[in-house]
Every structure is written in C-alpha cells, then in structure tokens.
C-alpha cells in the first residue's frame, strides 16, 4: 500500500516535470551539460541542449523550432526586435594563444607580436618583436606556423574581434568574422583544424606552431599557453582569475539586451568572450522554464563552470540579467 502511494506521488511529481529543448553554440556546451544534469537531479525537469553551432542556434530559435538558442555572437537590439527575441549572457570563457615551440615554456606575446603574427609580418620565432619580451627564451630561427580554424566558428569571431579592437590595421583589413582568409594562408605558413580539437591536435603535432584555442580545450589537451599583453600593458596569463578580472569590465547593458562583445577589456586577460541565450518573445510560459533553468545555473553552477575552465558571470551582471527577466515578464515562476 505504501509503495502504491509512493508510486502515485512519484507519478504526480513527474507529470509536473517539463522538458525544454535548445540548440546552438558548442562553446558553452560542456557547462550547460553539467547544469542540465544537476538541474534534472534536483528538479526532475529535463533540458535538452545540442551543440550545433551559433548560426544554427539563432536560425532554429528564430524559426521557433526550439525553446531557446545559444549563440556566441550577441545579436543587436534591432535584430532581436526583428526576430522577436530576448537575449541574455550565461557564462564567460577565454581564448588562449597556444603554442608548440620545443624548449620554450613561458612565452610572452606583446600586442605588437600578436599583430605581426596574425598579419604575417612576423615570420620567424626569433623576430626581435618577440625576443624583446622573452630575453631568456631560446627562440629558434624557425618559421612560425599559424594554426587556425577551418570551419566557421564563434571562436574565430571572438578572436578576430579582439584583434580588431587591438589593431586598427586588422580592423581595416579584416574586421571580426567567423571565417577569415588569414594572411598567413597565402604565405603557406598556415595549418587549419576543424573544431577546437582539430586546432589543438594541429598545434600538438606541428612544432613551431601557434594558434588560438578555447581555454577549456587548451587545458584539456595540455597545450602551452602564452601570456598576453593586456590593454593596460601588463602581461597576463590565461587563467580563470584573469578572465574574471577582465569580465568585471564587460559593461553589459540590459537596455541593449546585453548586446556587447566583451573582448579587450581595460584590465585583465584581453581575449575573453561571453556566450548568450536567445528566447522567443511570445512564448512566455516556455521562457519562464528556460530562465528557471539558467537561474539555477547562475545560482548553483559556478563551481561546475570554473572546473571546466569557464568563468561565471560576476554577481552584479547576474542580478542585471534577473532584473531583465523580471522586466520582460519572463522571470522564473517561484
């Protein structure tokens, strides 16, 4: 009898449990996966998220095929209005410049050096621009092999966004794009990899190479990561602490639907990026479920995010997002 009652109770609970579906950016996928798991264990509600790429995420949510879409690239308020979407950030991640030079371990790259490497004007590792800040390192006279993504990606977008803000020349010539015909391609010093792991593998297997990889992947693959000159001139290592330092200066504005690419902050590690969630304006009931899930992530998911190499949003921004939800009438039902 007891069992029977318990069974009914369970059935009652599970009939209230709901499922929401989302798709989009692959960059935050590991974090969402963790959050989804613990959210399910705690509430019994299911969230499905598939990493298909930011472009797909936007398309799918714009077509209302899914309850929410993930994008590494924020949408402008005008675009959001057109697509009838709301937008808010979830986590922050860093992009590391990973390198493979046998015998060199603490590479420091100034802005000039990074600029020269991506623009193809610095061709050898023993270029004075690089040696200047690495007097101890034994930099060989070897060609720099630049490793980049072969697929269109949010990581490339965020990295080139950083380059654009740092270097007017880059901005003029290339700007921020998801796919770039890198100047080093034409010089035959490029290798391209598919996905973050493709880039990681290429860096690992090709000596004297350097490339940009999501921090989480660089850590997973045990790649060496360069210290990068920040906007304030200091050299900072890619660590969650330095990402968080940069995130403080993100300058999100709820009035603009958090439309902001946060790369190149005043202080802290410069190559950082936030990832965003898009929800349809008219599906308020569903949106409340989506925000309930992300509210759970904001409240309980910081540790999981840090462990995976991401940076949780600063509390002030989380509160901003919660207020944004309340203003739009999509705050999670309490």
């Amino acid at each position, binding site marked *: 009898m007891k069992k029977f009652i318990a069974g009914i109770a369970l059935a009652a609970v599970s009939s209230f449990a709901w499922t929401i579906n989302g798709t989009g950016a692959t960059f935050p996928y590991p974090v969402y996966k963790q959050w989804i798991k613990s959210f399910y264990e705690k509430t019994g509600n299911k969230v499905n998220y598939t990493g*298909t*790429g*930011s*472009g*797909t995420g*936007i*398309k799918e949510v*714009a*077509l*209302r095929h899914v309850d929410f879409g993930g*994008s590494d*690239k*924020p*949408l*402008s308020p*005008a*675009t*959001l209005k*057109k*697509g*009838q*979407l709301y937008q808010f950030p979830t986590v922050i991640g860093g992009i590391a410049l990973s390198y493979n030079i046998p015998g060199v371990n603490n590479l420091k790259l100034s802005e000039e050096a990074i600029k020269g490497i991506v623009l193809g004007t610095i061709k050898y590792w023993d270029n004075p621009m690089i040696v200047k800040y690495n007097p101890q390192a034994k930099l060989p006279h070897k060609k720099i*092999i630049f490793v980049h993504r*072969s*697929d*269109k*990606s949010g990581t490339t977008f965020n990295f080139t*966004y950083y380059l*654009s*803000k740092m270097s*007017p020349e880059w*901005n*003029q010539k*290339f*700007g*921020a*794009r*998801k*796919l770039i*015909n*890198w100047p080093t*391609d*034409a010089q*035959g010093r*490029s*290798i*391209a*990899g*598919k996905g973050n792991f*493709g880039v990681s*593998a*290429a860096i690992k*297997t*090709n000596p004297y190479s350097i490339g940009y990889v999501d921090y989480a992947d660089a850590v997973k693959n045990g790649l060496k990561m360069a210290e990068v000159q920040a906007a304030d001139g200091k050299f900072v290592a890619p660590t969650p602490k330095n990402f968080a330092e940069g995130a403080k200066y993100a300058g999100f*504005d709820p009035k*603009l639907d958090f*439309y*902001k*690419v946060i790369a*190149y902050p005043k202080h802290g590690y410069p190559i950082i990026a936030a990832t965003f969630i898009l929800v349809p304006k008219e599906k308020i009931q569903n949106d409340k479920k989506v925000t309930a899930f992300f509210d759970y992530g904001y409240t309980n998911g910081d540790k999981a995010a840090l462990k995976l190499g991401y940076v949780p949003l600063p509390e002030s921004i989380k509160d901003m997002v919660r207020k944004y939800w309340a203003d739009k009438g999509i705050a999670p039902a309490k």
Partner: protein
Amino acid sequence: MEAFFKRLSALSATTILLILTSIFVVLFLYAKPAIEAYGLKFLVDPRWDVVITPQKATSAPKKTENLGGVNVDNEDDIPTVNIPKQNQKINVQEDDLGDIPTPASTTKVNTQDDDLAGVNVQEEDLGISAPTQNTQPQKQKVIYGGLVPIVGTILSTALAMIFAVPIAMGIAIFLSEIAPPFISKPVGIAIELLAAIPSIIYGMWGLFYFGPFISHIFGGGSVSLLVAGLVLGIMIIPFMASLTRDSMKTTPDVLKESAYAMGATKFEVIKDVIFPYAKKGIIGSMILALGRALGETMAVAFVIGGVFTFPHKLTDPTVSIPVVLANNFAESSGMSLSALFYLALILFVISFIVISFAKFYFLRDKK
C-alpha cells in the same frame, strides 16, 4: 499478382529518379541567388568569402556605438546584388521564415535583406543592422568563388585513385588467385571490416597518427593535400579490393584450367583470362570507389586543412567541396549559404559527369 509485382518494382525504380530530381531541384533553387550573383565566373574565381571595397570609404569604425568601432563584418549580409535580385531571394527563402515577422525587410532592402533571407539574424546582427548604417553595405562586396575547392576535390580524388588502384588490384589478385584459403578467408573478412569503418574514424586516425607520420617523412604540415589523398585512398581500397576480388572469382574455372593446360603461367592467366573476363566488375568497383572519394566529407575535413589556397606542393593544405560544405554549413546563411548550395550543385554535376564518362568510356563495347 504478377501485374502488382511489376508495378511495385517499377515504383521502386521511379522513386530513385524522383529523389534524384528533387535533390537537383532543391540544390538549384537554394543556389539560385548565388548563381545569379556570380554566374559561371564562380567556377573560375579562386576567392572565397573575400570582401572587396570598390570605393575606399569604408569607415566602419564610426558605425557601431557600443561595440567600440569594430568593423564587424558579416559575410553574406552585405548585399552583393541589386534590388531586384534581392527580391527574388526573398521569394526563394520565404518558406523558411516561418512565423517570423518581417515587416522591416521590405523597407530597408539594402541593409536588412540578407539576414532575413537566411532568417539570419546571425549574420547581419552586429555590423549592419543598426538603422544608421544604410550606406555601408553598398560599398562592400563579398565575393564567392569555387575554384579552390573544385581543384582541391579533383586533386585529392585523383591522388586517392592513383594510390588506391594498384594496391587494391594487388590485394584482389592475391586473395582470389594466389593465397591459400586459410589466408584468403581471414584477410577477406578483414578487408570487408575495413570497408565498414565509418569515415570519421579514418579522419581521426589521420589527424592524430597518420598525418604527423606523413609530415615526418615528406615534410610539410600534419594536414595537407597529400595526407587527405592518402587517407581517402586507404578508405576506398577495401571497397575496390573486395568488389574486384568478387568479380575475379566469377571467372569460370573451365577457362582458367584450359589456359593452364595450354601451359600458361599464373601471370599470364591473370593477365589474359581473368582480367578480361572480370573487366566490367573491376571497372565498376573503381567507379564506385571514385564516387565515394569525390563525395567523402568527414575524413577529409579533418586532414585536408581547410585553407582556401591552391596547393603549390603536395604537402600544402587546401580544401575540397564537401569539406567546405561540412565546415561552413551550420554557420552560414543568406548569400554564403546559397554559395554553399552552388558548390554542392557543382559537386553533384562533377560526380555525374565523371561517373557517366567513366561508364560510357570504359564499358561502351560490352553489353
């Protein structure tokens, strides 16, 4: 019953034709904007996704206030075509707009059109969508040209065939004529197993092990045209070998025995009896393998490099059509999506031409 059976089988055959036609039509419809914009020049233009600025006045920085003046470029949202064409694009794409309200699109054709074409908020979002920026798009033009992937596809397939054909023939001859049964059986099974391995596994193996190994021997990077060709070759060997072996085995023993009785050596029997007899099957196996090599995506995507440049050496990275599609499809929309469909259409036509040429040329005198 008999009539029904005939109908049914005729229906199955028609399905194939229907599918083929519908694929072709869909590819064509989606590719239409790109075909109109670039025409046949697409086939010979080596530039992909390159922004050209006819007038120098692209002062993007002043445009986006809160983005700190970054020239956020958005591939296809920059209209490369004039207004009537854009309207056509709207027509083509309107189906997938679904329930998205699109009032804005009609008024600001120049700036807003593309995003809506792909529903794609994504592409146009940062740079152009701000209402103040009406002027910028007209000054820039994005060029898509398919020559690099077309050349890459042909080169990597040719490399694969050159590498695979002799080895596959050797395997088939060994298995069907030379090896004793206790060797040929297990080896035959192993080859069939190889044929069943998903291509992504070849890709991963190529990326982590085979690529570095090749670059160690031949120089160059761990991903290159050479690696892609060899991995492709390895992938199609099992197909070719097992089909060739099967068709060689169909040679009647009477023929072989009479040849041996006449004093022919093993080499002569293989050359003069078995090969002519099994020729059709052998060429058929090559055509099947060629088809697979032309369209192979995942394995090649890992190892070819995905760089839009012509390979000057075998060890340079380049790109092939299926790889471009796989790499860019998820993130494309508007004109870049339509350029991808154009490429897909080209691949379709190339495969069709190559395979029908092979069929007619090699098999013309047999029936």
